[in-house]
């Protein structure tokens, strides 16, 4: 079983999947880091984004990668509006309320999708859906390779943005010290909404990279949201580097686990890690003790 010729492709497969997981988790960890809320609607919003990519392809014939310039700003705007007009308003300054608001949002979005688009599982066909790339003897599917580099690029852009730009500084300031940020003249409400928007923009990008090799149905987000939470906990709540590393770890564990234990049991490894982290290093790999 320990043949390298089998293990190596499996690890590569895991890394490519992990990159997309990381991108999804980045959005989640950003929202948590700044707003201190756990966005339960993350999976449902990803589902909406996947439908967006699907319909752009099915109705307008737009290639999923060409849909990036539409989906990323579109999801950003949706996120900004959601935080500004729905979640922020419902919170009344209490974090527990936001928890309920995002949970409620999940129910609304999922049932809306069920009503509008039915429970059918849909896929798209692109010329490259079934093509593969030879990576040192391992055949990896082309959409996964694109997703890997796409997710890495998106992550790099996000990190640079947070580190360099004024808004990035403001976001970090609000994340650290909300009151202090307000005192120096940062519009906290605006920063909240911007962070939420950027978090969802990550999902817009992830959806474009996912769909060529995946599918969409109203429940598709549930699987991702669990994995994304595990990654965020593993990497440390609010840590970007942690989300990236966590994504890769989870991707590889899932892939190699699937190889050993079969497709249905492959995800066991993820949850074993989740429990182990909670027991032995609850702050995560890059998290600081508070």
């Amino acid at each position: 079983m320990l043949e390298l010729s089998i293990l190596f492709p499996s690890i590569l497969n895991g890394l490519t999947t992990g990159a997309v997981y990381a991108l999804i988790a980045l959005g989640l960890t950003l929202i948590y880091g700044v707003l201190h809320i756990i966005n339960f609607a993350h999976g449902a919003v990803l589902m909406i984004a996947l439908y967006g990519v699907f319909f752009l392809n099915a109705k307008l014939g737009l290639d999923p990668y060409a849909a990036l310039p539409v989906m990323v700003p579109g999801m950003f705007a949706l996120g900004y509006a959601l935080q500004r007009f729905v979640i922020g308003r419902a919170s009344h300054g209490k974090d527990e309320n936001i928890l309920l608001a995002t949970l409620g949002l999940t129910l609304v979005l999922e049932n809306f999708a069920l009503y509008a688009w039915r429970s059918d599982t849909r896929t798209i066909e692109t010329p490259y859906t079934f093509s593969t790339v030879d990576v040192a003897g391992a055949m990896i599917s082309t959409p996964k390779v694109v997703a890997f580099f796409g997710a890495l690029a998106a992550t790099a852009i996000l990190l640079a943005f947070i580190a360099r730009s004024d808004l990035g500084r403001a976001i970090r300031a609000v994340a650290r010290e909300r009151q202090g940020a307000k005192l120096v003249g940062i519009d906290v409400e605006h920063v909240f909404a911007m962070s939420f928007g950027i978090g969802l923009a990550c999902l817009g990008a992830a959806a474009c990279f996912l769909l060529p090799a995946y599918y969409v149905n109203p429940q598709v987000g549930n699987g991702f949201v669990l994995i994304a939470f595990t990654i965020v906990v593993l990497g440390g709540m609010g840590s970007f580097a942690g989300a990236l590393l966590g994504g890769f770890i989870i991707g590889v564990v899932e892939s190699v686990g699937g190889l050993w234990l079969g497709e249905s049991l492959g995800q066991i490894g993820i949850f074993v890690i989740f429990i182990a982290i909670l027991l032995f290093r609850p702050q995560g790999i890059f998290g600081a003790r508070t």
Partner: protein
Amino acid sequence: MIIQQRRRKFLKQSAGLSAAAAAGTFGFQGIAGAQAAPIKVGVLHPVTGFVAYSGQLCRFGAQLAIDEINAAGGIKSMGGAKLEAVLGDAQSKPEVGVSEVEKMNEAGVSAIVGSYASAICLATTQAAAKYDIPHLVDVGVADQIVERGLKNTFRFGPGYKVITEAAINDLHIMNTLARKPAKTVMVIHEESLFGTGTANLLASQLPGMGYQVLEVVKHANPTRDFSNIVLRMKALNPDIVIPANYYNEYVLLVRTMKQQNVRPMAIYSVLGGAASSFKFVKELPDVANGVIDCNHWYDPKDKRAIALRRKVEKINQFFTYEVYLNYQSVYLLADAIERAGSAKREAIIDALASSSWNKHFMPYGPTRFVNGQNQGAQPLVLQVLKGDIRVVLPNSYAESEPVFPWKA
């Protein structure tokens, strides 16, 4: 009834009177068509949703038969009454199938032909039983469909128990002919009733024939990535790979095997495999070459089948089992109505139950229904050879020798 008898008498007389045979026949049909009340037949298939591709082919096959029967003068014992299709779409969901049956009952159908997928057939036959509507199951291979004692349910084709047993026997024959090079098997199946049931039968019966089942792998619908399953296959290195899944997953699995350079002695599928799909053979000839499938198939030596295949291909459709199983089911129904001489549901049920119809081109022999199952129904084993689908087993129907083990 009296009116119908009178009309029959009148038609007989007028037919006798008509002098020119050809011209007379046409005139005769014209009058009869205008007078005899049409017989409504529910044509129920999943033409949208998950299995839409197959459902549309089913509908096409049923309509082809209805058009032919009508063009040939309709039901003669009923004064040339025409068949009128009442179309229904089950949307690939059992519950929608049930509501379509309700609508068809309201519309006053005499019988229903459909509804392709096992899960939908289970639901629609039950719903039709409530109103005593005779229901011809066109494909639906799950054996539960005909094991519930429903008097209205008739299945012309074979169920998966018969198919799986035939598949195992023929595999063994093929292997024995080649001096038994194959010893190990890996089964890959989809998660629903059809795949799981088939896989269980395979896993329980193959060891008795001397094959070691290395692993049984279940996958979801849809699955968009078979890399892990194929990598595992590479590690286990089975002599024979048996997939039991639907078209999309089958195609992706076989393509992934090709990409990863996994080449067992045979890819031998049980139902749903693409070795019985002209679409697959046409679109991916190099991947399809050599694959074997045990599935519904027509008697390749029957001229009527070959003629129909030409006719279907002429209108740019694929001649798949969905098409001809429905085509034949409609003819079977027409034969029953003809003998019953009535559009009444009970009369048609009785006529179907006592049917011994042999004017079909399937390898089944005359129909004989026991508890709604046609006893002679059986599958054939097919292999893609040189870009064409050939029957390779059993011997009495074979067009070519099976190529086994396959050397790619």
